[in-house]
């Protein structure tokens, strides 16, 4: 029975690792494909840098108008 348990442990952990490794590969590939097909994510928040740049641009625009 211990033998059966050892086999189950080896095969079991092996299967868990193999399955999750394949899942990692597949998920990474899927994410890569998705990101290539949708080049510019449009609904994310602007980063701090972008906010700064936009703020500066608006300020300059206002200065030019006045």
């Amino acid at each position, binding site marked *: 029975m211990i033998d059966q*348990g*050892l086999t189950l442990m080896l095969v*079991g952990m092996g299967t868990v690792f193999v399955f999750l490794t394949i*899942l990692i590969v597949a998920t990474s590939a899927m994410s890569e494909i998705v990101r290539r097909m949708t080049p510019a*994510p449009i609904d994310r928040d602007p980063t701090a840098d972008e906010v700064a740049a936009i703020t500066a641009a608006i300020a300059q625009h206002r200065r030019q108008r006045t």
Partner: protein
Amino acid sequence: MEALQQIWQGSGLYQVTGDQIVMLGVCLGLLYLGIVRQFEPLLLIPIGFGGLLSNIPGAEIATGDGLLHLAYVVGIETGAFPLVIFMGVGALTDFGPLLANPRTLFLGAAAQFGIFATLLGALGLTELGLMNFSVREAAAIGIIGGADGPTAIYVAGQLAPDLLGAIAVAAYSYMALVPLIQPPIMKALTTEAERRTQMVQLREVAKAERILFPLLLILLVAMLLPSAAPLIGMLAFGNLMRECGVVERLSDTTQNALINIVTIFLGLAVGSKLQAEEFLVPSTLGILILGMIAFAIGTASGVLMGKLLNRLSSQPINPLIGAAGVSAVPMAARVVNKVGLDANPQNILLMHAMGPNVAGVIGSAVAAGIMIMFTS
């Protein structure tokens, strides 16, 4: 006079056995843990109260046509309740952190070592003559190490219904005890410097990735390990309803009314397995001890895999997040966060730990599929 005698002989005081008194105490203890200590109250309160009702002498609530026995037959023998709960878990789970950093799936894989080590331990105790577990029973006990209540109940219902009460109580109790069990192990296996490791912020995950992930998951299970398909399938279905964005009303109901209703009856039905004659047996003690060991080994394997990944990876990985790989969502991730903060107050690990945390749910469902395939 005869009527008074009938009342007296029908009373609990006349019929109660010492074992039932012990079990009433145990159930009050579970209620205490749930209510006062707030250990997994959503499950421990229904289980504890169900156990109380099941140990009322002569009431027959947990046998025959009693409500709790009906709930057990309808919901647990069929596997329906844990599967519906798993659908709800899917609808409540954000796989974003996992998608942002899929390598954390390795941590969820490593932590399942607790499951298989415990299986071996249970068979070892049997070999030594201390216990008497069949392989099916040993497999069901091992799943406690998966730290995932519905998975443990599903597997126990399939492989070892007689042990279901003890297994469910052990699973939920230890999930609740995660803040006590895990930190010493995590600290023993890591250096102060490792615990201080800060990780880079997770990338954003696109909506399409979130929608495709549950489909990818179920298709891989279909191709590689169909015996895990019921559990993983319901998890993936719940998650697809959550993420697809076009069936909010179904997703909301799954996350609320449906999972709540099933949780109540699942808990009561599990409680029906806390009857004294079934629960107060030597194997229960064995299960409680083995379950604790399973948790500890799972935590340790997760942390050790975290250390390995940290060495192999170009970007730093704090090995503490490996402890979240046992699942016990979201408690284990919170514990990781707290231990990380203790070492470095700037070190917010919560989102990084959510990856292995949900990976642990997948990992233990996969392990459950393997157990079911090999032993039935």
